[in-house]
């Protein structure tokens, strides 16, 4: 069964550093998403991406964050100048089309730890 692949599975970074979280969506999917889950809290929407641009973003997704699909296969989330409160599990997801019948396919997540 096709999977959404996220790398790395765990990243530790110094506060103030930039990190890039990588995702390889399912190949024929067109809609891409990032979600965040702070430990012990619920999963929260960050951003959706379609046709090489952001479709929607939440209040969490401020200027510190950016997304990119650099080469037609990867979908990245960049966090500039990381803060301690950015420590969380970050989930990438993809979807074939706009119809929401089947929901998303989530990746297995990247655990980001900011120290």
């Amino acid at each position, binding site marked *: 069964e096709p999977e959404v692949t996220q790398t790395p599975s765990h990243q530790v970074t110094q506060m103030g550093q930039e990190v890039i979280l990588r995702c390889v969506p399912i190949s024929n999917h067109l809609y891409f998403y990032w979600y965040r889950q702070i430990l012990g809290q*619920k999963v929260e929407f960050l951003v959706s991406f379609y046709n090489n641009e952001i479709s929607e973003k939440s209040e969490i997704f401020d200027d510190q964050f950016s997304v990119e699909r650099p080469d037609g296969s990867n979908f990245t989330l960049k966090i500039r100048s990381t803060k301690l409160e950015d420590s969380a599990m970050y989930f990438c997801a993809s979807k074939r089309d706009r119809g929401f*019948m089947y929901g998303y396919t989530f990746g297995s997540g990247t655990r980001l730890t900011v120290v």
Partner: protein
Amino acid sequence: AQTVTQSQPEMSVQEAETVTLSCTYDTSESDYYLFWYKQPPSRQMILVIRQEAYKQQNATENRFSVNFQKAAKSFSLKISDSQLGDAAMYFCAYLDTGNQFYFGTGTSLTVIP
């Protein structure tokens, strides 16, 4: 914005017994989808079951079934013949027409051997 409420932070069930996890949501939309996701300690999000709001028939997926009460905005998950592998965090989620998910705070399920 839609809200999803899971009022049971923790639940436990004896192996082979049945357990029901509660979920309520708030929306003004008439067309939406509801999901239950399982999150084991690995923290991967695994789809358990989904329900289309326009369908009156409750979804069933092997040992997992839902009780969808649209008027009451209730969407509970029933796990029958509970197995040790069912132990996980369970999230109820609402998917809106904009394809954005709203998740509940989760219910941690313990299965007692």
